[in-house]
């Protein structure tokens, strides 16, 4: 196996998808050829570096898409929900208000008989 043949197999060699026979031939060539060993090291580094290029979507990605769908569907889908401070959904705020009013009402009902004393 010469340099060119060895280097043609670098991709499959790095992926581990060469047949045993061809892999042995490449290994034999690499053992004797410093130039191809250096090339293979660089090739492996290049392939490895590509794996570090993954990206994450921007934080507003989901919100932006939903806004687009809302706009393009003329308000049919994904109507924006009102949120207190941009975080607490309207339903929770309503529920909290009802509970608070209920607690206040119960406190008044239970508290008023002992709080009011007849005038002497």
């Amino acid at each position, binding site marked *: 196996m010469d340099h060119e043949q060895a*280097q*043609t197999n*670098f*991709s*499959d060699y790095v992926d581990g*998808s060469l047949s045993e026979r061809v892999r042995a031939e490449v290994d034999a060539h690499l053992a004797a050829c410093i130039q191809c060993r250096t090339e293979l090291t*660089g*090739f492996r580094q*290049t*392939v490895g*570096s*590509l*794996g*570090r*290029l*993954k*990206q*994450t*979507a*921007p934080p507003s*990605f*989901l919100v*932006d*898409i*939903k806004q*687009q*769908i809302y706009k*393009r569907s003329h308000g049919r*889908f*994904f109507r924006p929900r009102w949120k207190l401070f941009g975080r607490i959904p309207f339903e929770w705020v309503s529920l909290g208000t009802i509970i608070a009013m209920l607690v206040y009402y119960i406190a008044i009902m239970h508290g008023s008989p002992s709080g009011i004393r007849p005038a002497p």
Partner: protein
Amino acid sequence: MSVDERLLIDRLIERDEQAFSEIVRLYGDKVFSLIYRMLGNRQEAEDVAQDVFITVFKTIESFRGEAKFSTWLLRIAANHAKNRIKHLARRPTEGADPDDVSQLRTLPDRPTPPVQARIEGPDAMLEAAQTERLMQESIANLPEDQRLLVVLRDVEEMSYQEIEEITGLPEGTIKSRLHRARMAIKEWLDRHTR
């Protein structure tokens, strides 16, 4: 396809907002990353990635479940990215975003910073950013068919089987194009970092 995935798709067909959010949460990064590395421009990638999920929302009924949902989704993403590359290639390059490396194939004489500045940054972060930029430029220099394969295999680390399903290409073709692409990237990096 798993039962959970089938249920999620069924809810999406009924236009369930939570199911849609779940789909974007599950696959948003992968789709964005694939498109960003194909186009080399963040703003364009955001627009195209949004379009991909809007297409999914509109056409989910056409997903028959023969392939994995992720395969179907990434096929849409790859097609959207290819179409945008073609669109950008037709667009005049005057006044282009200086960080946009998607036009490199049409700008062979684009000036690059001096080698010293590219290699010996004042700190590791700058050097890492510079290396990333070089890698991105080397991807942008590839022909479109090779670019997709490098991004799917080496950036997104997908199996050959998945790549076959997404691209519809036979494994032999994928391997030979991928090899040419990897060699081209290596040569490009060698030229620009020595």
